[in-house]
């Protein structure tokens, strides 16, 4: 699926919740619980995304020209948020990741839902994921 198709799928899923704040938060937390946990050895300072109120660890690999993301957080809502980003951007080429406009975030009203502090954290997560894509692109393209 393209990143566009995945985002549309997410928008559909969230539309079932009908904008109910409590159900949406519960749903995001459940998404977070489904994200596989990172090994304790990966939960180190250098993997922490700076600018998030909660602790968020992000690790990446580069396989067959695609970027693989894994992440974890000490709070379930943040874990749910990054699981959505991973769902869209995982196993895509650096170019796809860099060029993807993450329109689903505004469509599902994520920023209003999480408030300004966590919204800044969300921006930091996206930035970090795109930075990794850029770094892989620079390293492996010649």
């Amino acid at each position, binding site marked *: 699926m393209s990143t566009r198709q995945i985002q549309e799928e997410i928008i559909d899923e969230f539309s079932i919740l009908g904008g109910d*704040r409590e159900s949406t938060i519960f749903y995001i*937390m459940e998404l977070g*619980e489904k994200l596989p946990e990172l090994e304790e050895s990966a939960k180190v300072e250098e993997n922490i995304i700076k600018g998030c109120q909660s602790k968020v660890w992000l690790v990446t690999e580069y396989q067959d020209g695609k970027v693989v993301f894994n992440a974890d957080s000490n709070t*379930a*809502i943040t874990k749910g948020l990054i699981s959505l980003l991973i769902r869209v951007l995982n196993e895509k080429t650096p170019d796809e990741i860099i060029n993807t406009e993450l329109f689903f975030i505004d469509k599902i009203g994520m920023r209003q839902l999480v408030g300004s502090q966590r919204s800044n954290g969300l921006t930091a997560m996206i930035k970090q994921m795109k930075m990794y894509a850029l770094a892989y692109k620079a390293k492996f393209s010649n």
Partner: protein
Amino acid sequence: MIDIKYIREQFPAIHQEVNGFPLIYFDNAATSQKPKEVIDALNAYYEGYNSNVHRGAHTLAAKATDAFEDTRESVRAFLGAKHIEEIIFTKGTTESINLVAYSFGRKFINEGDEIIISGMEHHSNIVPWQILCEEKGAKLNVIPVKGNGELDYEVYESLVSEKTKLVAVAYVSNSLGTINDVKRIIAKAKSVNAKVLLDGAQSSPHCQINVAEMDCDFYAFSGHKVYGPTGIGALYGKKEILEAMPPFLGGGEMIKEVTFAKTTFNDLPYKFEAGTPNIGDTVALKNAIDFVNRVGKEEIAAYELELLEYATDQMKQIAGIKLVGTAAEKVGVISFLMDGVHHFDLGMMLDARGIAIRTGHHCTQPLMSSFGIDGTARVSFAVYNTKEEVDVLVEVLQKISDRFVAKTSKVV
């Protein structure tokens, strides 16, 4: 008896919906809502007699000065101080403590002296003393906190020595709600002639305060936690100590005479009130104190205690909830954790149902570290809260527990 209907009518801000649900404001330890008479007093001041105090030769200035000084008398009575000049207006607890650290501390704390604080202090009763000790080569000792959230008084008593010059502790803990045995703390400090500062930020809304009878040397408090405006509070200091202390800030209001050769300082309390004060908020603070006095401090305390017991009993029953701070003597503060559910997430889920609580370290990081946690969820009561509101909280917490605590324990 508390007439809850009457009380609730006094507070405009609690009658609103948040996220589609009636607001339940349980973040009173951070700041309380304000009764209408306080809001009206602010308006009356700005609309009717806004003027600088202690200066102008005109009617409005006289009216503003009278109202300003009426509040000082009201605070004096509220704290049980002997003399009106022992009440110094400040922005609040933080500034009051800093005033003592900078003025008293710079003059009377020397190398090798010791200051005692406790392990449950708010950062505002830690950092000023750390700065002072660093500068002076003095030592900061810390009274440990026991697992139930009470101070270890035996260790405290063993820390007190001839070197102890100051004991600075919270009367009531903002994170745990523990009411400390300040009588015992003061008695021991006095046995070595050490001065005592009480951080009264959390005790002032809930406890009967009588600084003269307690015989503390300093007492700091914030108006915004006792139904008053933000940006106004006070420092009580014993007259003879305040007189011996040098000024804190220099400027207008605090002087008697200024020449370039020498400045003579004004008398108490003006010596410590440099610059144009926060007149509007000071004036309205009187209305907050009047409100508390009219409802009755004892009645308020008894009512909040009832809410505390009612909520504690039910919250204890919910699977996964762990209370942090179970001291025998507490005010209406409940700090808690839920297994497998981070307090940030709890805060957001409760907010989605219109319930306002505080999450995090509550400006008491050393306390949190001593419990091996990075924060808690904290519910704190005021006189306008009700058992029905507690019921909603318990119902929502139960729902969160059913959904997330059961799951995490299955996974483990």
